[in-house]
């Protein structure tokens, strides 16, 4: 395939290794395969060589747990990215990490290597919940981790928070929220727990051993979260994402805005031109596929204009700002209200969508049932 060299891309690198798998996780990661990390990193470098010289303004190294690589391994990866791609001067370079997998020296090394943003999987500040989730750390260790990151020089830090956990009470959630705020991150990703089949947590809930809070409680948690974060100065800019002004995740925004990005590593996804394609999940298959040029030998979806229009809506509406009519027209040459007249009218009537000048966005109630709204924006 031809890659448009004039565009500026985002880069996602997947590190499919973990110390242990969390009880709720169905992402691609292979605990106990760390011995293959060197070979995996070599493969990544090979894969990136196809994109030599391409410009990028965001890099996101996610996982798995990237920080379960050694300091040197991770630094050499960042170095390889910097040498292979042309990174913009203000390039956002994020590394995901989990408490207990990195110390201050580790963070310092990353910082010196040019990593300027950390995303730390704190998830909860209640030890009971953390152990139920199968996290390897406790609340105290999470707080120490944030402190170490700050000591190492990081000023742009995202913390993850989960809610709607089995057995979680409103009180324990409020406690986690206030602990989180007191750590003063610049960015917060807050996820409602989704039980994926074939995870240990799913089985425990399915068998009745664990009980999820009911939907009303779960939604109140979300509302409380939005309110508390807003009081503390965090703006909600997407269904699950909050930040201090100016600290939105530029990389994640590319997903919602249909900007192009390159995915490297097992299970990584790319969006280039009219194609979306994915590397194989399985390690050995990925290693084989990585030798092939982009999109070749990979699961590939060619986006039609209809696909693109649908994506524009169901991705863009995740942002609080919503989708711009003007931008839609510029992209597709058709009025949004014509292409999607039925779902727009219907959902505005039901008070799930609303207009704010040029922008169509979800109402609070619309956020709660956003999937039901989105699926009507799929075009046949």
């Amino acid at each position, binding site marked *: 395939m031809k890659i448009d060299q004039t565009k500026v891309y985002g880069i996602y690198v997947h590190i499919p290794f973990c110390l242990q798998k969390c009880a709720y996780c169905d992402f691609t990661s292979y605990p106990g395969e760390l011995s293959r990390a060197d070979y995996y990193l070599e493969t990544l470098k090979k894969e990136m060589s196809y994109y030599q010289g391409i410009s990028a303004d965001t890099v996101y190294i996610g996982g798995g747990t990237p920080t379960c690589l050694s300091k040197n391994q991770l630094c050499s990866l960042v170095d390889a990215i910097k040498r292979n791609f042309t990174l913009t001067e203000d390039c956002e370079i994020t590394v995901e990490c989990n408490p207990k997998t990195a110390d201050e020296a580790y963070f310092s090394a990353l910082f010196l290597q040019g990593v300027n943003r950390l995303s730390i999987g704190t998830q909860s500040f209640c030890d009971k919940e953390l152990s139920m989730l199968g996290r390897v750390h406790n609340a105290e260790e999470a707080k120490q981790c944030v402190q170490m990151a700050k000591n190492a020089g990081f000023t742009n830090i995202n913390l993850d928070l989960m809610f709607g956990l089995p057995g979680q009470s409103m009180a324990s959630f409020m406690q986690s929220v206030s602990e989180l705020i007191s750590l003063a991150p610049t960015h917060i990703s807050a996820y*409602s727990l*989704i039980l994926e089949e074939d995870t240990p947590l799913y089985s425990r809930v399915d068998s009745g051993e664990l009980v999820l809070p009911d939907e009303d409680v779960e939604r109140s948690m979300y509302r409380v979260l939005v309110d508390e974060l807003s009081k503390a100065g965090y703006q909600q800019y997407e269904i699950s994402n909050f930040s201090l002004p100016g600290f939105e995740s530029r990389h994640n925004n590319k997903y919602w805005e249909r900007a192009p990005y390159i995915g490297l590593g097992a299970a990584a*996804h790319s*969006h280039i031109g009219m194609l979306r394609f994915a590397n194989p999940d399985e390690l050995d298959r990925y290693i084989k596929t990585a030798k092939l040029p982009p999109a070749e030998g990979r699961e590939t979806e060619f986006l039609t204009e209809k696909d693109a229009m649908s994506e524009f809506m169901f*991705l863009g509406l995740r942002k609080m700002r919503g989708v711009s009519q003007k931008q839609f027209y510029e992209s597709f040459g058709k009025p949004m209200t014509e292409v999607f007249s039925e779902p727009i009218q219907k959902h505005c009537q039901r008070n799930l969508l609303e207009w704010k000048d040029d922008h169509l966005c979800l109402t609070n109630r619309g956020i709660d*049932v956003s999937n039901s709204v989105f699926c009507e924006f*799929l075009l046949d």
Partner: protein
Amino acid sequence: MNRLEKIRNFSIIAHIDHGKSTLADRLLEKTGLLTEREMEEQVLDNMELERERGITIKARAVRLLYQAKDGEEYILNLIDTPGHVDFNYEVSRSLAACEGAILIVDAAQGIEAQTLANTYLALDHDLEIMPVINKIDLPAAQPDVVVEEIENVIGIPAEDAPRISAKNGIGIEEVLEQIVQVIPPPKGDENAPLKALIFDSFYDPYKGVIIYFRVKEGRLKTGDTIHLMATGKDFEVVEVGYLHPSGFLKCDELLAGEVGYLTASIKNVSDTRVGDTITLKNNPAEKALSGYKQVNPMVFCGIYPADGARYEDLRDALAKLQLNDAALVYEPETSVALGFGFRCGFLGLLHMEIIQERLEREYNLDLVTTAPSVIYKVTKTNGEQLDISNPTNLPDPSEIDYMEEPIVKADIMVPTEYIGNIMELCQDRRGVYINTTYIDSTRAQLHYELPLNEIIYDFFDALKSRTKGYASFDYEMKGYQQSELIKLDILLNGDMVDALSFIVHSTKAYARGRRIAEKLKGSIPRQLFEIPIQAAVGNKIIARETVKAMRKDVLAKCYGGDITRKKKLLEKQKEGKKRMRQVGSVEVPQEAFMSVLKLDED
């Protein structure tokens, strides 16, 4: 010995699972050796048939050759009977083609409702009943007790009944020997004008309709022009023959007393009605055989394709099924809720279930069916009379003078410990108690008159669940009776759902309405708004439930850049919505329509 004395025509009657088909298989096995000549013809014939269809033909009447101990070779014609009350008329025609019937009784279970019903039917036709005690190898077998039961309850000697295990091949020889000794040979003048009784017919795509018949008088050969006395149709016979255990065998002609098949390039089974008399066009019999009647459907329901786009497929499938089943009737109907479908009529519940199952399995159709209905006779205030099988067509109450509903005579066989439960059930179903007859100290037969509309829902399930599966049940039509009937409607979010309307006795409307509302609440998923479910009689709401608005349907999780996965989830959700029926603004899953058919559960 003359020709007729070496023929025996018989059926096997039994309660379901008492071993009818196993015994039939054993009889075939014991007698079914082919001569070399037959083998050759057979193989050819079978190849042709298989090329055309690749399905095995159901052996409805098989000719067996049996070398008896008296040294003579006998022709035994085994005529199969359908095993359920819905096909009572067909059973009676099959029996009318016989001189005797083997009555199989399970040595462990004894006499059941169906055993009795079929036995009485056989006795009505003056058949010689030959009891056989089966499953004597079971640990729980009590052959002596069963023999006594047969003698006491049915009143026929059973002392000499063969005690067999069809499964293990024990006592089969004895059965064959008794058939020859006990069952009388047929009578009939082969030189009289032809009278042959049709006891079954089915459509074969290769040969056209195949008629099974018993020659009562006269003779029938290839090339004859036959006249069917009830339908008045004439056909030229292409082929006559009989069914050998391994396939069709052509022969030159069939004479009085014999059983066989014919083909005559007939396109439609509705021309070859079971019970009709075949005679010759140029030498007709004066009078048809007695006992013919046109069978009419008793139970109706709407059948709709789950996927509206498959309406044509459903129509084709019904047309194909009807080729082989003259009792199935259908006509197009439209429902606001379910779209285009058919109102179908069946002989009874089993018949309905069989058809639904065949549509789903053989034609790969997903169906939505409405609650079954009977035919109500409505007399309007202006004197006009209507037959109503679709509740939607019921006139406004102000125009109705009175209504009548069909009543059946039901015989329920039950272990005595469950009599109370069954009486309670029948009471609840508006049954009128007639009497109880005791089979023995542990089992009784309860006789009730029940409105048919009370047993077409889930009566059989209810019967089984109240007796740990021990009750057996049989019914026949009694007639119509005036009754206080009303139409119950279901409203979703204020809109009436025509497919859920039904006719019910006024005393039961409230309970039924409430139960349906509860059931629907359980099967309609939460939606973006609150949905009131109401049951109404006329303008009066008699029950209400509410499906609360959906609280949460949000994908908070970030799947990295995997937009494809997100899209697939949304597509799945959209597909799910598509499979639902849009009733006003409410999306109703198929299951919701089906859930109201089983109100007795939990």
